[in-house]
């Protein structure tokens, strides 16, 4: 196995600053976060991806750069987009350019003050919701963003998002809100919102028969929380990682998610969320409670 890269940087001050700029600073303030109806025993956002695109989101690979925050953020937004489209939103799904989120977070938001790789979750959340926005994969003049590039990610991480892309990014802003606990996460997931999870929690690479990975070691890392299941009466959250399709091994667990992630115990995820740099994203203003469109 090649060396794996993480890239989350903890910065409580940056988080606090962003909270003062968001219309809904924390998930508990949103309609979805306050919804007190019984929650389903499972939520699998990847089924929205299958419905919208015909398949799972492809396993993500950040490669040899500490861009996990960009990947966790992009993945969470992509799941939110799929759920919103499935629920009747007329937008077209397009994969996002993680390089732009990485450059936007590190340079456009944080002013390039971080010397090594990595980013704060709040920086990425601020870039996609306040300072900049999203750049869907595609060609923009002479800039070809159709496929992910580690070299471009490093370059944008050092010098920022090209000026000609910034107006484009601001056409596609999303809303962000902080998720601080497992119950908040469940409520946001039940309404179709993907969550970037930044923490220092590590895990074993091998999944058990239920697709669960046990906590192990320490990763300063950002991943994407995209669903949950109830297994033998206990709750587990599904986390998508950005280390390719074959880093994690074993059965993938309930709902047949992709091979790029694992289930983790709700108590472990709750501790991860309480490190206060995890964010849910919505392309629809105000994080409304999910309603069924019934278009199958």
């Amino acid at each position: 196995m090649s060396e794996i890269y993480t890239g989350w940087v903890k910065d409580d001050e940056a988080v606090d600053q962003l909270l003062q700029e968001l219309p809904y600073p924390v998930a508990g303030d949103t309609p979805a976060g306050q919804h007190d109806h019984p929650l389903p025993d499972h939520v699998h956002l990847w089924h929205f991806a299958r419905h919208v695109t015909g398949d799972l989101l492809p396993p993500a690979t950040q490669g040899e750069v500490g861009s996990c925050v960009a990947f966790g953020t992009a993945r969470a937004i992509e799941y939110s987009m799929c759920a919103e489209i499935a629920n009747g939103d007329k937008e077209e799904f397009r994969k996002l350019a993680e390089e732009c989120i990485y450059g936007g977070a590190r340079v456009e938001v944080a002013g390039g003050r971080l010397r090594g790789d990595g980013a704060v979750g709040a920086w990425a959340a601020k870039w996609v919701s306040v300072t900049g926005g999203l750049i869907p994969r595609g060609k923009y003049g002479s800039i070809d963003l159709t496929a992910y590039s580690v070299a471009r990610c490093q370059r944008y991480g050092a010098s920022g998002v090209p000026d000609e892309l910034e107006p484009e990014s601001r056409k596609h802003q999303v809303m962000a809100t902080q998720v601080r606990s497992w119950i908040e996460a469940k409520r946001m997931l039940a309404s179709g919102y993907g969550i970037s999870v930044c923490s220092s929690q590590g895990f074993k690479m091998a999944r058990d028969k239920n697709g669960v990975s046990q906590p192990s070691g320490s990763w300063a890392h950002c991943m994407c929380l995209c669903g949950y299941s109830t297994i033998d009466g206990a709750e587990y959250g599904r986390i998508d990682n950005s280390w390719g399709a074959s880093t994690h091994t074993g059965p993938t667990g309930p709902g047949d998610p992709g091979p790029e992630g694992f289930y983790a115990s709700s108590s472990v995820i709750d501790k991860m969320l309480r490190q206060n740099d995890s964010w849910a994203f919505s392309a629809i203003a105000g994080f409304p409670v999910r309603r069924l469109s019934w278009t199958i």
Partner: protein
Amino acid sequence: MIVAALLLLAGQKIEVPAEVRGEPGAFIAITPKTDGKRVKYYSLDAGLNSFPAGLLSDPTATVVTAPLPGRYRLLAYTALGDMPSDPVIITVVVGETQPPRPKEPTAYERSLLAIWGAIQEPDRESSRVAVAQLYRQCAVEARKQYDTAGALYDALLKLSAGVPRTKLATLRERVGAEIATVVPDDPAAVITPAQRQQVADIYATTAALLESVK
């Protein structure tokens, strides 16, 4: 005496349908309205066979059959006292059964047909087949035990994997709108077996329509 004769004359009646239909080789029953106790039948055309009258429990009725398609005449008469009735002729039509009149499409089906006619996707034919198959599966799934709208929706959503939402999108939105008239949009709302049956019926109807259009 005259009155009695008139009464007798008035009772000598036999009413039969002018035409009866059936398939070749099938039994075709004829039951007249009559005051007579017995009715006699004679085939006027070769190929029409009458069931032996003595084996029938109703002596006014008959059963005929013909192995070949065609139009056959059957003469019938009865009598009351010593006064015979006028003979009547029944036309037995074999093998020319009129096909059932096509069912008029409902407003919902008409809307789907209009949408289908307007769709110009390059792969609309393969999408038509795929979506019809999806809705057949949905019709089966909707009859299963799901207690909440969200649970049913999630089960149906899983089935849609492989049929991207962009395929026949406008038509599927119309189907979704029809489903939304019978089940709520709150994922936590409890749904009844009757509602699930209605959902299944909509999907089955839609699948049948998609299978019938070209």
